[in-house]
């Protein structure tokens, strides 16, 4: 990565982090283009981290209008903004994020990501989505995979005190740091669809329960009942029913997925818990920086955090290699 040097301004601003990841990584960051679609508290944390780190550009997509309600957990929306109706979340995020780092190009793209054709994706190195249905997640994931260029794809969801990150880096090569220098390391990632179609009976016993719980909620949400509502009384029986269907189908004992965990997730509904947003947004930021710089062991391919036990766990859920 020779050629252009960092400017004196960049060197001064990024001094502390260059000491963590090096000048080459910083140069790569400053050329990377990131797309984020589906804005919420967790994504706000991620955006903050990646803008501070100095990516080249960040494109925001979310046409939903800012409402006062949305401000309960968002540091990108000022009190005044929330009262001025008519602006989209993406526009408001964009204004705040620009201030964090004038060297990053932050912009808004209107529309629904899943209607964009493949060419649009070529503009980006990284695509992150949040809050979409399973169907749309799979669709966008496959659009990224169809491109000639390698586009890293991530999903992130926060459900109350639990969170999940999914990573698809396709065929990824990076420099792994060893005590005696670095070696080139190669990893193959499955698509979201391939990963979650592995029957539960084939997964290791120790796989975190949160993985299964998230799939149950996804299944429930793609059913006729739609999104979780705030009143758990209504949703819970249907969620428990979804558990039964999936467990029977995939050969896992229902007792492996305790009521209490599902209950907790259902009670949280779509609410985000700010400390968990910060933690997920932090890890997602780190992962994206690793993927751009090609330095450091990336997560393969799911990450879970649960505030109830404080564990941050990596799960590798991939089909057996051919």
């Amino acid at each position, binding site marked *: 990565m020779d050629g252009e040097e960092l400017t004196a301004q960049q060197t001064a601003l990024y001094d502390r982090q*260059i000491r*963590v990841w090096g000048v080459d990584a910083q140069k790569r960051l400053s050329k990377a283009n990131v797309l984020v679609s589906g804005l919420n508290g967790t994504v706000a944390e991620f955006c903050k981290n990646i803008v*501070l780190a100095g990516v080249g550009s960040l494109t925001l997509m979310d046409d939903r209008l800012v409402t006062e309600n949305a401000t309960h*957990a968002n540091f990108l929306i000022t009190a005044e903004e929330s009262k001025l109706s008519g602006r989209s979340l993406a526009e408001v995020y964009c204004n705040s994020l620009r*201030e964090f780092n004038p060297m990053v190009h932050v912009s808004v793209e209107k529309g629904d990501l899943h209607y964009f054709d493949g060419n649009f994706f070529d503009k980006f190195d990284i695509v992150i989505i949040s809050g979409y249905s399973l169907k749309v997640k799979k669709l966008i994931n496959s659009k990224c995979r169809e491109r000639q260029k390698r586009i890293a794809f991530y999903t992130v969801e926060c459900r109350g005190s639990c969170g999940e990150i999914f990573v698809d880096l396709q065929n990824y090569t990076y420099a792994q740091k060893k005590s005696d220098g670095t070696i080139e390391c190669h990893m193959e990632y499955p698509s979201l669809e391939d990963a979650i179609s592995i029957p539960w009976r084939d997964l290791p016993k120790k796989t975190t329960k949160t993985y299964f719980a998230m799939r149950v909620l996804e299944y429930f949400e793609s059913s006729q009942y739609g999104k979780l509502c705030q009143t758990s009384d209504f949703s819970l029986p249907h969620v428990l029913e979804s558990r039964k269907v999936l467990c029977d189908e995939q050969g896992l004992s229902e007792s492996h997925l305790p009521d209490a965990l599902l209950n907790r997730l259902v009670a949280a509904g779509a609410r985000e818990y700010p*400390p968990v947003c910060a933690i997920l947004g932090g890890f997602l930021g780190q992962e994206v920086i690793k993927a751009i710089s090609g330095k450091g062991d990336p997560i393969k391919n799911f990450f879970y955090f649960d505030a109830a*036990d404080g*564990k941050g766990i990596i799960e590798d859920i991939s089909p057996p290699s051919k």
Partner: protein
Amino acid sequence: MADSHLQAVKGAKVLMVGAGGIGCELLKTLALSGFEDIHIIDMDTIEVSNLNRQFLFRQSHVGQSKAKVARDAVLKFKPHINIKPYHANVKSPEFNVEFFKQFSVVLNGLDNLDARRHVNRLCLAAQVPLVESGTTGYLGQVTVHVKGKTECYECQPKPTPKSYPVCTITSTPSKFVHCVVWAKDLLFAKLFGDKSQDNDLNIRPSDDGNTSKNPEDVFERSSDENAEKYGRRIHDHVFGYNIELALANDETWKNRKKPSPIYIKDVLPDKSLQRNGHLENCTSEDMPISTMPTLGLKNPQDIWSLAENAEVFLESLRLFIEKRDKDIGNLIFDKDDQLAVEFVTAAANIRASSFGIPMHSLFEAKGIAGNIVHAVATTNAIIAGLIVIEAIKILQCDFHNCRMSYCLEHPSRKMLLMPVEPFEANKSCYVCSEQTLLLEINTWTTKLRDFVEKIIRNILGMNLPIVMHGANLIYEDGDDIEEDIATNYARNLDKVLAELPSQVTNGTVLTVEDLQQELTCNINIKHREEFDEEKHPDGMVLSGWSGHLNDNKVASNKENDISSAPSAAADAENPDGPDVVPEKPHSGSKRKISEVEESSDNSENPSSKPNLPDRENPHQVDDSNSGDDDDVVMLVALPEAGKKKRVQTAD
């Protein structure tokens, strides 16, 4: 968030200490989580290098109070909550036990050991739970300290700052860091610092007497000597003549590679420096004085040639003399002083070259000299989230579920975030239990001053100590001491222990107290005359608190601290704290830097290395982050696993 959460959070009054890297993230997450009464102490002002991660601050805020700007920034997205900023040092007397008592919990986002220990004591005295935190690069940790339920922050002794034996710095450097310490603490201090400070720059020839010139005079510039001529003379003295003197001592080089003297005429044969013509116009008001533009050196990542280093050396010396004459005599090395960093880089490189040590870039030398800590926003955000989770458990009195959390760079048993049950208090902790300490000391040769500085302040971490022998006051620090008594104390400081009005000899028990910290210690004095000079260069051994202290730990970095910024910063994270690199070779303990477990005191720095609770392999250390040169890595030993009881068992 459950309703019980919300109730606990709404009624809580919390104190945050530090508004830096962790502090900004913490204040944001607290506000978003529903906290409505937050007090925040930070003595620091905003710097440019903060802006890449302290996201509440903007370029236009540089120079302003972190605590105040952070408050204003948070109120923009979360109005109608109470955030009270204090632009002050947490160690100042206004923050006494009464002050601490008003809070439900105290949350630390500090950058230095001194302030961390101080807050720990106030929390113990005020019986307020403390959540402590630190980060370095991708590593971070959060610990919970509740009096009567868990260990306190100081139950595991915190290693003192790294330091080196004097002779390594003055005569036998083997690593680049030794050259940086020499350039910064000896040469820079000698040329530009307080002349009255002791300085070991000039090695004393073993056969004294044949040097006609008093070495002290060498550094004086005569009135008819221009800056350039002076620079060349200093260069040849420290890199040429002094090396020749050292070479004369065959004993030193028996098992070492000999250094080669470097003279300016060999490095820069042409008589005078080649400068770009527009030199004098380069230094405008808003640009810092620097040699680099005039010498055509652009990239701080480049490693300069020996000739370039010599040019920077001469040119920076000249600029100090011609442009910053008024600073000379009271300069203290500051990593933000561009010219000082250039001088130290050049001097360290020339010395390194002389000793066959690889040279380094300005960027790297600055990091070492300024004890700059690696810091990224993401780790701070994660750690701040974990702090809030623990704080909420404390507020709900759910102590049973409190955890220490470690953020790792490489997963251990699939985990990147690892919770560990808090440990029980260490019964021999002098801070949270009543423990008599034993001090072996030569009472006939050690002055009270050394005892107060090296033991009471540096090791015991007291801020305003009182020393008593029975009912007799021997010494007391504070603002409101009457003049005649103060004179008396000053007189005592210069006396050896055995000659104090109230004699301190073998068997004496001294009581040492800090009223602000509400901490009292009894120290048994044991007279001892023989000490291993390398192990205990100060001639004192304190024990009785934990085995760790017996050796190696009598390193002070406060006394004669010739190079660091104020160490008691209630700052959140800027790595100005004095220490990844030793500040003061004089008090060097014998330990090699790579063995030192922790640099106690830099910025968002974890106070201990993740302590992996691996059942099968309790001593496992995730060492994978130590790819860097061990001079900068902040490694920490695992607490001895066997010694500690967990408060409870995990699932």
